[in-house]
């Protein structure tokens, strides 16, 4: 995600040794993934508003530590909110309870409002921590870290091929799109537009299939036998352990705050 935030060309070596993301960027990618998952699980388990606010504060704290551009990161987080906004708005009306006010005869309940706030806090805390801890990784590093965490090989390969070819596909799309433009194509609401976009998507699929066949051929030529080997090694340093312990303590205190 941060990759999209800052499109400067970074190499793998730079991304691992000289990370631009402050304290967070120096941590072992594996520990960042594990901690992000742990934090997500803990946050989802929380049920009280104070605990959830603390969880969101923890995420914001991580954001400050990471030196990500704050406004743009929060904006991206808000983009995720647009997916759940309808559910949040409708929740007070769909949950029975004490009436707060009525709109066109439909009562909005306090219980529904609190539920909506809970969900909004949970979602934002989780997505923000994910963006800070996992999103700051170079996608390639993410793939390697998942591999080292024993994520199913097929999924890791899928991720790696996506990383490698998404740009090629996008360029192909842009080429086709400009080829359409220079012949005066302007999208509007008619059959010609739908059909043309259909052709565009179809052509991209056909080309993608042909390319995948050529890639398989190239891999076979170099002795591919169904297994990809990944080269990168990670090593845990003391700082990683310290971070893991501290962050786990934060998670435990969040849970305790919730139960008290």
């Amino acid at each position, binding site marked *: 995600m941060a990759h999209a935030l800052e499109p400067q060309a970074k*190499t793998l070596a730079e991304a691992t040794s000289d990370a631009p993301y402050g304290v967070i960027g120096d941590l072992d990618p594996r520990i960042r993934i594990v901690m992000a998952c742990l934090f997500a699980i803990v946050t989802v388990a929380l049920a009280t508003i104070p605990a959830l606010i603390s969880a969101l504060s923890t995420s914001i704290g991580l954001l400050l530590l990471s030196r990500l551009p704050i406004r743009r990161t929060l904006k991206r987080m808000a983009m995720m909110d647009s997916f759940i906004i309808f559910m949040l708005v409708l929740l007070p009306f769909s949950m029975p309870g004490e009436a707060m006010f009525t709109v066109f005869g439909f009562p909005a309940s306090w219980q529904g409002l609190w539920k909506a706030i809970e969900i909004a806090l949970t979602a934002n805390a989780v997505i923000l921590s994910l963006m800070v801890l996992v999103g700051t990784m170079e996608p390639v590093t993410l793939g390697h870290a998942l591999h080292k965490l024993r994520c199913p090989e097929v999924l890791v390969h899928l991720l790696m091929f996506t990383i490698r070819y998404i740009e090629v596909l996008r360029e192909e799309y842009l080429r086709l799109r400009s080829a359409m433009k220079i012949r005066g194509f302007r999208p509007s609401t008619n059959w010609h537009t739908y059909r043309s976009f259909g052709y565009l998507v179809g052509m991209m699929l056909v080309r993608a299939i042909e390319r995948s066949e050529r890639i398989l051929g*190239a891999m*076979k*030529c170099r002795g591919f036998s169904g297994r*990809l*080997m990944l080269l990168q090694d990670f090593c845990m340093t003391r700082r990683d352990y310290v971070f893991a312990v501290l962050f786990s303590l934060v998670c435990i205190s969040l849970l305790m705050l919730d139960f008290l």
Partner: protein
Amino acid sequence: MTILKLEDIHFAYPGHAPVLDGASLQLEAGQRLSIAGPNGAGKSTLFHIALGLQAPSAGRVTVFGKERRVEVDFHEVRRRIGLVFQDPDDQLFCPTVAEDIAFGPLNLGRSKAEALAIVDKVLTDLSLMHLRDRITHKLSGGEKRLVTLATVLAMEPEALLLDEPTNALDTENETRLLDILLGLPQAILLVSHAPAFREALAPDSLELRNGRLV
């Protein structure tokens, strides 16, 4: 020693007129041979048949003195003959240059350390060390081409098949590629539309016309 011998190869894509109609060629160790021919004449297909990526409808493929028919026969062929594809994006599929070059040696059963040593050696030989940790899709066209050559050379092949290697290269990179290729000991079979490049690298020339090599 004869490295590659194609005899009377016939091939047609389903629903099309035959592309290859009795093509034959022979490549000796250390020989440099170029093939010319119009677009769609079947030059790339010929390479794919030589490495078993496509099966001819008739004809014999003999590599290193053995006739090759089924997929298993070609495993050894692919190890000993390197093919550089027309589009570098087809060939460079690993995220980083080092991984891509190590892919072949790792498949051949080398250990990680050995593979990395090969990566460094090949890159040093081609003076490409500065690209080692770069991400493959962020390379320029010329860099991609040179890296694809490195990925093939890492397998230490005895012959190279080059499919239009100068495609989309500027003059400077073309000269550089030519210098590198001229310095290699391997036999080379070249397909290229650039007459000057053919002349410089492989003066022995065949032409693919109407599905036959003349």
